[in-house]
C-alpha cells in the first residue's frame, strides 16, 4: 500500500503539483432486506481503489482508479495534474490551504461485537422474526425489515508527510409497517425512518430489539388509517428525536457548510442564508436554549472519525452558542477565507470521490431541566410529532416543510388523539427562535443519517445528529388540507 501511495505522491509532485494527497479506500457493505415475509435482498459488496488530489498553480485536479498498481498510480497522478492544469485555465482565486501539522496515526471505531463476524443467517433470522411479529397484526399491506453493515479501511497520505490509517464501522437496522386503504397509505417506522444507524458494532442492532417493537408499531400503522386528519393552524409542537434530528440536519447542518456559503454547491443543492457577515456579528439563529456543536469525536456518531479526508484531526466545533451563530463546518481551503483553521469536515464518499465539506455529528445539546416526557407534561395544548415522513427546504435553507408519520394531541400535559398526515412549515431562524424547551440528557440520543446527498458527481454521506427532543411555539401546522 505504501508503495502505491508514495508512487502517486512522487509522480504528482514531479509533474508539478505544489500539494498532493492520496486516499486508498476499501469498503465492504452487507445489506439484508425482508419484505412481507420474503427475503428480498441479501447482498455483499466490496469496492476498492484510490484517488489522487493535486493542487497545481492554485487549481484543483482529482483522478481515481480501481486498478491498484504502481503503473496505474503513475497514470492517475499524471491525469490529476493534467486536469488541474485544465482547471487553471478558468481560475480567478488560486486556492490557499491553511497550515496544519502533518497527520499521523491510526483510528478504529470502538465496538463490542464485530457485525461482519455475526453469521448472516442469525441476522436474517432476527429480521424474519421482526417481520413475522409485524404481520401478526391484521390489516397491513406490506412490511419491510432491514439490516446494513458497512466497514471502510482508509489510508491517507499527503505530500506534507501525513500518513493515517482508519477503520470505520457503521451499522443500521429498522422495521417498517405499511397500511393501505383507499387513497390512504400510512407508514410507521422504528427506530427512525430508513433505520437507526450508529458507528458501532452489532451490539447496537441488538439494543434496538426490533422484534420487541414490531407489534405496537404495526398496530399504530393500522390505527392511522381511521385516524382523523391532523388539524391545521398556529400551534405548539413538541418534536420527538425521530423528527428533530432531521430538522437539525436540514435547517442547521446544511446551511453551516462553508462551501455552500461560498457558492460551490449553488448549481446543485443551493447556497445558504448564513452568509459570512452573520458570523461574529451576533446573528440570533435560535432562542437562548439553542446550543449546537459539530462534533466528530462524539460516541456512536456516523460523523465520528480520527481525521477528516484531508488529514485534519477530529474536533468539536461550536456552531450556535446560547442561540447566537458562531461557527461553520469548514475545510483547509475555506477556513482561511474567514480567518480560521479548518474544523475538519472534509469527507469523501469512497475512493472515487473528492472530499467535500460534510456534516460530522451536528448535535443539539441537551439542557438540564426537563426530560422529553416532562416537556410533554408541561404542555397545555399542542401536538407531539414523531418519525419523519418527508422533508423539503429552499435553496438557501430558509423555508422548510416537514411531514411526520404520526401526531398525538397534547391536552393538559397528556397525550391523546392520534392524527394522520401531519405537516408543519416555517422559516428556519424564526422556528429556532420559537424554541422554549429542550430535553435533558435522559432523552438525548445519537441518530444517524446514512443518505445525505451532496455534490456532483453525487456523494452519499453518513452523518450523525444527537438530539433530545424540543418544544416550539406558534408554528404553522398544516397547509391547506394538509
Amino acid at each position: 500500500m505504501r508503495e502505491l501511495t508514495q508512487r502517486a505522491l512522487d509522480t504528482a509532485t514531479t509533474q508539478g503539483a505544489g500539494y498532493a494527497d492520496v486516499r486508498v479506500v476499501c469498503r465492504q457493505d452487507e445489506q439484508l432486506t425482508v419484505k412481507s415475509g420474503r427475503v428480498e435482498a441479501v447482498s455483499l459488496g466490496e469496492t476498492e481503489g484510490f484517488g489522487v488530489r493535486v493542487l497545481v498553480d492554485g487549481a484543483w485536479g482529482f483522478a481515481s482508479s480501481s486498478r491498484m498498481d504502481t503503473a496505474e498510480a503513475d497514470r492517475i497522478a499524471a491525469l490529476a495534474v493534467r486536469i488541474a492544469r485544465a482547471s487553471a485555465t478558468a481560475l480567478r482565486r488560486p486556492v490557499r490551504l491553511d497550515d496544519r501539522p502533518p497527520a499521523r496515526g491510526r483510528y478504529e471505531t470502538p465496538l463490542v461485537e464485530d457485525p461482519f463476524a455475526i453469521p448472516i443467517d442469525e441476522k436474517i433470522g432476527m429480521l424474519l422474526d421482526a417481520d413475522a411479529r409485524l404481520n401478526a397484526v391484521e390489516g397491513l399491506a406490506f412490511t419491510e425489515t432491514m439490516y446494513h453493515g458497512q466497514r471502510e479501511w482508509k489510508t491517507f497520505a499527503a505530500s506534507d508527510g501525513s500518513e493515517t490509517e482508519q477503520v470505520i464501522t457503521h451499522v443500521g437496522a429498522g422495521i417498517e409497517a405499511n397500511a393501505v386503504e383507499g387513497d390512504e397509505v400510512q407508514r410507521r417506522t422504528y427506530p427512525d425512518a430508513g433505520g437507526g444507524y450508529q458507528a458501532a458494532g452489532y451490539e447496537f442492532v441488538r439494543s434496538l430489539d426490533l422484534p420487541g417493537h414490531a407489534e405496537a408499531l404495526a398496530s399504530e400503522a393500522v390505527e392511522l388509517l381511521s385516524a382523523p386528519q391532523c388539524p391545521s393552524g398556529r400551534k405548539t409542537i413538541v418534536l420527538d428525536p425521530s423528527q428533530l434530528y432531521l430538522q437539525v440536519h436540514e435547517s442547521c447542518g446544511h446551511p453551516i457548510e462553508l462551501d455552500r456559503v461560498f457558492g460551490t454547491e449553488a448549481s446543485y443543492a443551493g447556497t445558504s442564508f448564513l452568509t459570512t457577515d452573520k458570523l461574529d456579528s451576533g446573528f440570533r439563529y435560535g432562542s437562548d436554549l439553542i446550543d449546537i456543536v459539530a462534533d466528530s469525536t462524539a460516541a456512536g456518531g456516523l460523523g465520528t472519525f480520527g481525521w477528516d479526508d484531508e488529514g485534519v484531526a477530529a474536533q468539536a466545533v461550536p456552531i450556535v452558542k446560547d442561540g447566537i451563530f458562531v461557527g461553520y463546518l469548514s475545510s483547509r481551503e475555506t477556513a482561511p477565507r474567514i480567518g480560521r483553521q479548518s474544523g475538519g469536515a472534509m469527507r469523501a464518499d469512497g475512493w472515487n470521490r473528492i472530499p467535500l465539506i460534510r456534516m460530522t455529528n451536528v448535535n443539539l445539546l441537551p439542557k438540564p431541566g426537563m426530560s422529553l416526557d416532562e416537556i410533554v407534561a408541561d404542555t397545555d395544548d399542542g401536538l407531539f410529532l414523531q418519525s419523519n415522513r418527508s422533508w423539503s427546504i429552499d435553496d438557501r435553507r430558509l423555508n422548510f416543510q416537514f411531514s411526520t408519520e404520526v401526531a398525538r394531541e397534547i391536552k393538559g400535559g397528556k397525550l391523546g388523539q392520534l392524527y394522520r398526515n401531519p405537516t408543519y412549515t416555517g422559516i428556519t431562524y424564526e422556528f429556532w427562535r420559537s424554541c422554549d424547551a429542550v430535553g435533558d440528557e435522559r432523552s438525548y440520543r445519537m441518530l444517524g443519517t446514512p443518505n445525505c446527498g451532496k455534490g456532483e458527481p453525487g456523494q452519499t454521506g453518513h452523518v450523525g445528529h444527537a438530539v433530545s427532543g424540543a418544544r416550539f411555539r406558534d408554528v404553522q401546522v398544516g397547509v391547506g388540507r394538509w
Partner: protein
Amino acid sequence: MVIEARTGVLDLCRRAIQLAEADGATQAEALVQRSDQQLTRFANSEVHQNVAEVDTTVSLRFVDGKRIGVASTNRTDDASLRRLAESAARICRVQPEQPDFGGLPEPGAEPVTAVAGASSPSTVEATPERRAEGARAAISAADAAGVLAYGSYRTVTEHVAVANSLGIACEEERSLGHVVIVAMGPDGEAGYAEAAAVDIDDLDPGALGREAAAKAATSRGAVAIEPGDYPVVLEEYAVVDLLDMLGYLGFSALAVQEGRSFFEPGKRIGSDLVTIRDDPADPEGTPATFDYEGVTKKPITLVDRGICREVVYDAQTASREGRRSTGHGLPAPNPWGPFPLNQIMDAGDTPRDALVEGLERGLLVTRFHYTNVVHPKLAMITGMTRDGLFLVEAGRIVGPVRNLRFTQSYLEALARVEAVGRDRRLLRGFLGSVVVPAIRISAFTFTGATEH
C-alpha cells in the same frame, strides 16, 4: 439474446457465471458495469472542482433453487472472481426459499437488434480541456451579462454487460454529456439552463450560459407575492419533476402490486393533452437496448391522452402476474422494483411564447427545488420554485417575484394541463433521462413563501 461489443466485459460475465455453476448454482447471472466518468464544476465564474474516475463492478446473482444471493466486487482478477462466487453462494444458502421466485429471465425467441445512438465517439473521447472550454464559454456569457456562472459539465461512458446461465448475453456502450448552469447576480437574482445529450457535439455550453444569464438578468428586483392558487406555465426544467415523481410513485408494477400506486388501467389522471411513454429506442432520449437483467427494453405507453395504460415490469414482478418482463429491471438485489428510466412526454402544438400568452394572470416557473412526497397515492408533492419565477398578466411577463413553496397533487396538475409546448428538451431526472415539453396548467397551489 446475444449482443457483443468485444470489449472484454462480457467475458467477465461469463467467467463469473462459470465459477458460480462450479459452486453449484442452479442459475446464475452476472452484471458488469465499466464506467469512465469525468466532471468539471465551476462556481463564482471559475473552475473549482475537476474529477475523473474509472471503475469496473461485477455483480453476481447466485441462484440455488429458490434461494438467491448477490455479491459484488470491483476486483476483476480470477482470484477475486472466485471469492465473489464463494460469497454469493454462501449468502444464498443460509437463507430461506423465496416461494414466488420465478427464475432468471430467459432469452426471447426473437433476435435482438441493438438500438441506434446509445453512444457517441465525441463523448467517449472527451478531454478535461474540452470540458474546461465549455466552462469558459458559460463563464464568458455570464461575464457579458454582469452575473456569475455556477454549474457542471459531465461526460460519462459506460459499458454494460449482462449474461445469465439461461443464455442471455448482451453488452452495450452508452455515453452521456450533461451541462447544468445557474447564473446568479449580486442581488440574488438567478437563472437556469440545462441540457443532456448522448453526443457532446450536440451540447452548446455557451448558448446555455447565455440562456441562464439572460434569465438571471430578468430576475433582478424580485418582489414578494402572496401564496395561493395560480395558473402556471412550467418550463421543461420543472416538468421533469412531474414525470420523475409519477414514475417513482406509480408507474412501477411493484408499486401497483403493493397497493401504494395511484395507477389503475383505464383511470384518467391527466387531460387529453397528456401522453407519457417510456421509450428506450427514441433517438430524442438516451437509447438503451436492454435492462440490468439483460431483458430487451420494450416501449411502454404509461399514460395515453390522460388515461392510465401500462406500468413497467422486471422479471420478478412479471413472474407474479404470469407475464414477461418489459425490460425495466434494476441491478439485483432490488427491493424497489422496476422503474421507467426513459420517460418521454409527447409534444403538443403550442409555441413557447403562446404558452405564456395564454395566462391571464399567472406564474412562469423555471424549475422546482427539493421536492418530496406529502401523500404518495395522491401524488401530493411539496417543493420550492427556484432560479426564476415571474408574474404574468394579460399574457405578458410583468416582472420577477420571490420564490414560493407549493403543495400540489401532481395528478391534479396533469388533469389541469391546458396547453403543451411543441418543443422538447432532453434532461436528466433522478430516475434517468426525460424528454419533456413545457406545459400550461390552469391552477397550481402555492402554500408558502421565502425571502428571495
